[in-house]
């Protein structure tokens, strides 16, 4: 099913979608664009190549309460408190959707499935958005992502001159377009003006990299690579394929809640044990963990590198210690390049 909507009609479409349930989309928040819930007056920015933080928030919220407790005397009552409603994610770029599919493997495919994530994923209708202009940090081509198409989207949106072409790919997608009713016009004869989007060529050669890294846990390259790392968590929080979380209680002896929230393997306390021992005590161990997870551990389990080339770590790392630098340092560079 293909439909078309004039760009100036989009706010109406968003309003009608938001009336039915939370609608997440790229919103200009001061100087940055973030994937956030629509509200009246929000400044939607579909032209932004990438949101500062990935849309993984929609599926794996940065904070999610799933239990309440009540305590009195010796009694303890544990009450499930998850709150998952149908949502629409509008304007997810192909790289970010590919990343969500990587999270699916961990959270849905790998037993036992994570019920919270799974439910959110099933309850979300994804409107993918093709990219027309990459920015200098985009390098999704390296990972076989087609910037013009997000295969896993329920609806694929293409920005055209003055209009947007919406193509439903799944039943959920069709339902979404049907709901929109008169706002949309028939687009069966329209075609997406697909550009051949070339993203940055950093000269990477990923062939066999995960396999090669298997023996390189103790490689001296780690002694150098980590040095500039400040030990903040920027890379992990902006990254669409990072999925670590923490579980914490909030409340007092009488009543409160338990939630999970994003956590980062770059933090020292991430692996610190109660007795004081910490298996990843230094920045070197933590930097190695992060890059090895992307480039070796995840691929070992799921047969693909856990990076989609969205470029967020290149854009946001305060000291430019990003995955491209890591791949190059680890020998994943085309030989002719240097």
């Amino acid at each position, binding site marked *: 099913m293909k439909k078309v909507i004039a760009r100036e009609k989009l706010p109406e479409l968003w309003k009608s979608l938001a009336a039915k349930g939370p609608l997440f989309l790229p919103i200009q928040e001061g100087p940055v664009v973030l994937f956030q819930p629509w509200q009246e007056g929000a400044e939607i920015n579909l032209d932004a190549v990438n949101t500062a933080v990935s849309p993984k928030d929609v599926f794996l919220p940065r904070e999610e309460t799933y239990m309440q407790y009540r305590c009195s005397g010796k009694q303890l009552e544990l009450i499930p408190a998850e709150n998952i409603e149908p949502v629409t994610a509008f304007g997810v770029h192909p790289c970010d959707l590919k990343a969500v599919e990587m999270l699916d493997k961990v959270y849905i495919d790998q037993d036992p499935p994570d019920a919270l994530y799974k439910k959110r994923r099933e309850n979300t209708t994804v409107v993918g958005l093709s990219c027309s202009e990459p920015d200098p940090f985009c390098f999704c081509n390296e990972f076989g992502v087609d910037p013009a198409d997000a295969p896993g989207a329920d609806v694929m949106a293409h920005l055209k001159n003055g209009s947007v072409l919406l193509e439903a790919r799944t039943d959920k997608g069709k339902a979404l377009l049907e709901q929109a009713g008169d706002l949309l016009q028939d687009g069966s004869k329209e075609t997406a003006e697909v550009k051949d989007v070339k993203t940055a060529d950093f000269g990477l050669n990923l062939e066999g990299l995960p396999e090669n890294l298997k023996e390189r846990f103790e490689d001296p390259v780690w002694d150098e690579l980590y040095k*500039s790392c400040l030990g*903040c968590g920027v890379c992990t929080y902006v990254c669409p394929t990072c999925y670590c979380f923490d579980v914490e209680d909030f409340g007092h002896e009488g009543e409160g809640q338990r939630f999970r929230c994003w956590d980062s393997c770059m933090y020292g306390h991430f692996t610190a044990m109660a007795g004081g021992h910490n298996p990843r005590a230094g920045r070197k161990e933590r930097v190695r963990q992060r890059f090895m997870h992307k480039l070796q551990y995840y691929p070992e389990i799921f047969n693909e590198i856990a990076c989609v080339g969205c470029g967020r770590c290149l854009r946001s790392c305060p000291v*430019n210690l990003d995955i491209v630098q890591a791949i190059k340092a680890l020998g994943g560079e085309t030989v002719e390049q240097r």
Partner: protein
Amino acid sequence: MAERNIESVNKVREAVSQDLLGGRIDLLLGWEKGHYWWQSRPLFARSEEDLEKLAWDSFCAVNLSRYLLEELKDHDKIGVLVKGCDARAFNRLLQDNMVKRDQVILYGLPCPGMLDYNRLIEKAGGALLGITEENGRVILNIESGEQEAQRDDLLLDKCKDCRYPDPAVYDQLLFSPQGEKEGPERFKTVEELEEMSAEERFGYWEKELSRCLRCYACRQACPFCSCRECFVEQENPRWQGRAYQPSENFMFHLVRAYHGTGRCIDCGECERSCPVDIPLQELNRKLIKDINELYGDYEAGLDAEQEPPLLTYRPDDPAAFSEK
């Protein structure tokens, strides 16, 4: 390419290579180019080969002094390239007894201010191939030709109102000083915020802080945040919860800023490091402004001998509350 500085980077290299190769220092902290001409990242140089990568151009924003905290564990004597802010950061660490003066050789780089790639792009209005610089002007090489702009209009926010571009402490000054600057708009945003009503101000901060990811880049990049254990990680009592609640956002950012009272060197690395562009520097500058007003002018990091204002007092100090 950013070809401002072929000569100057050679001069820097010359100065440091004698010391590094002659064994006077074991390590040089400098910068090297990143993936693009408008990126520079820290360089940890130990050999002549490493030094070939050395960069000194308009994109060397990263404050290097902070790396001393880690590197001094493995090295006896370290050379550091210091801009004005890096040198103040060094003094800050010195005052906190985190480093010793004789462990470090400082190569002073009077700094013209670092350029902001986003501003360059905006100015170029399209693909930007590179820049050249001369006499306070920047020539942007764009597809359709060249475009000229004032350098001062293209600076990083953190450099815009820098008052002390020259290193306050160094062993060797590699270029001629820039001289002290006015920084006329340093407190402009603070003053604008002060003009607002309490409600408006709270709304402003609530909105700005709502973007906080709790990635702690601001803390990790900061030369005054050198505590072995930050209150954020403290248990029993647990001060900082991990939830993304407005209350927790304020807790972190107010305390982070407050811990910099009289210690913040105004380098702006916190704000530059923030992936969601929270105007953190305004919190720091508010404290700088108030301390100056209440207890006399003080610029953290300018003089390591001068007592930081919160470590001293005078019996006749004024107070920001009624003392009757």
